């Protein structure tokens, strides 16, 4: 079961290899974020150089796959045929406190009509697309138990 129906464009690793470690990580159900080996600054999306110290030695530690909703949108008008029957759906921008507050985009699983709270605690759900060629894994998000009982 995926949050959005099949048929959307699949993610492909960048031809220059910049984000290969991220996509390899999601296949292993790990959330890997780029961090400078020299000055320990986190950055996202990935780049070939650290924006803080200009170092070129960048690591990819796995971080706790949890965060907070920094922003969100609820999509009602489908612009891709694959989404024609899938609206509304919710997109969240999730801030990762364990990775210097960098943000990632994903869908919020669950009732798409429910209110979304800025700051809501969410945890990652690794969504495998094993039948794709090549296979890939997306990082989706759901509210934590604690958030549900707020």
């Amino acid at each position, binding site marked *: 079961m995926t949050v959005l129906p099949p048929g959307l464009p699949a993610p492909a690793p960048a*031809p220059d290899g910049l984000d290969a470690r991220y996509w390899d990580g999601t296949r292993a159900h790990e959330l890997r974020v780029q961090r400078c080996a020299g000055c320990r600054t986190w950055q*996202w999306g990935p780049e070939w150089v650290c924006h803080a110290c200009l170092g070129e030695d960048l690591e990819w530690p796995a971080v706790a796959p949890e965060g907070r909703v920094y922003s969100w949108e609820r999509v009602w008008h489908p612009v891709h045929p694959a989404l024609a029957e899938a609206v509304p759906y919710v997109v969240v921008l999730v801030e990762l406190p364990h990775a210097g507050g960098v943000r990632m985009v994903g869908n919020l699983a669950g009732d798409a009509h429910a209110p979304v709270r800025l700051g809501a605690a969410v945890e990652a759900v690794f969504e495998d697309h094993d039948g794709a060629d090549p296979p890939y894994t997306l990082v989706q998000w759901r509210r934590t138990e604690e958030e549900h009982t707020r």
Partner: protein
Amino acid sequence: MGEVARTLRGRVAVAGVGETTYYRRGRSPDAEFLLAVKAIKAACADAGIDVREVDGFASYADDRNQPSRLAAALGLPELRFSNMQWGSGGGGAAAAVGNAAAAVATGLADAVVVFRALAQGQFGRFGGGTRRPAVHGEAAMTVPYGVLSPAQMFAMRTTRFLSERGVDRSTMRAVALAAYHHAQQNPRAVMHGRPLTTEAYDEARWIVEPYRLYDCCLENDGAAAMVLVPADRARDLAKPPVYLLGAAQGGEHRAAAPVHNAPLYGTACFTTVAPRLYEQAGVKPGDVDVVQVYENFTGGVVMALIEHGLCSYEEANDVLTFENLVAPDGRLPLNTSGGNLAECYMHGFGLQVEAVRQLRGESCNQVPGAAVALAAAGPMVPVTSDCLYGTAEALG
């Protein structure tokens, strides 16, 4: 040789402006290149100069109509300046004017046309999103989650802005209603004769929260152009010169950090550009008589007005009302041609043209005595741009 002041202020003037008929998306009977040619001819006719005097072209957003082809097609004696503003789509509309003005001010060329032409029927639309089977780079981290269209790319930025700053969606509605109101007096406008009521705005379908249908720009076919010449040359031409008081372009610190990681997320990305503009122009926000702000989506216009110092975050809900945003009597007349929402989505170039018309007293929604006009391009893109135009009186 003495030191030359490093400013554009007063050195370059807009001699002529022009546009084609504006069409609904895909309805242009003319090829895109012919649309560009027609707009360029119209701008030269307006200026009272021979097309053969043009010696340069500037555009933005990867406009397909290359200066070399235009120069050949128009039989120009010589091409001296050929310029494309890099990136950020419509955010380059004012930057293209600034780039052309820099060329004119420094003697690289004598008569530069800035233009934009679009035939979305011929070349496909902006709002549709990709149909490719796979995407990579930043798109791989957004598109598979259903973030494909410009509206979907900018909605989260707007949500954050509204929440963080306590700004109400009523400000966005006022922007849309003012644009449609102005379009009713503008026979060029695609939405001329199609007024928008408060009820129709409120009842329109959601596109992506927080944007309803009328918060979103149109998609159109057409072309618009402007001719820039040295200030002293402009004084001999057909129309009263409109001077460039200043031009600025650029972005905030790491504005293009991928996957929505710009540090200042809830902004239109004018927080560095606008202060530089005012400083160069020697103008304060309170001196601006009429404002044209690129509308991709209404939320970005609200952010842009605030970032240009035209009202504060705290005042926004009270100041950004329909009554205040309409000409001739509003306190902050905005997008007086109808803009991208209701005149034509000419990728923001119609807003630059309208700023010039206001200062000549030629607008369909004239602000009495307008002497300083701001025209901003971009909102919410990593590279935005601004021009401030002024009359001879404003130049002093």
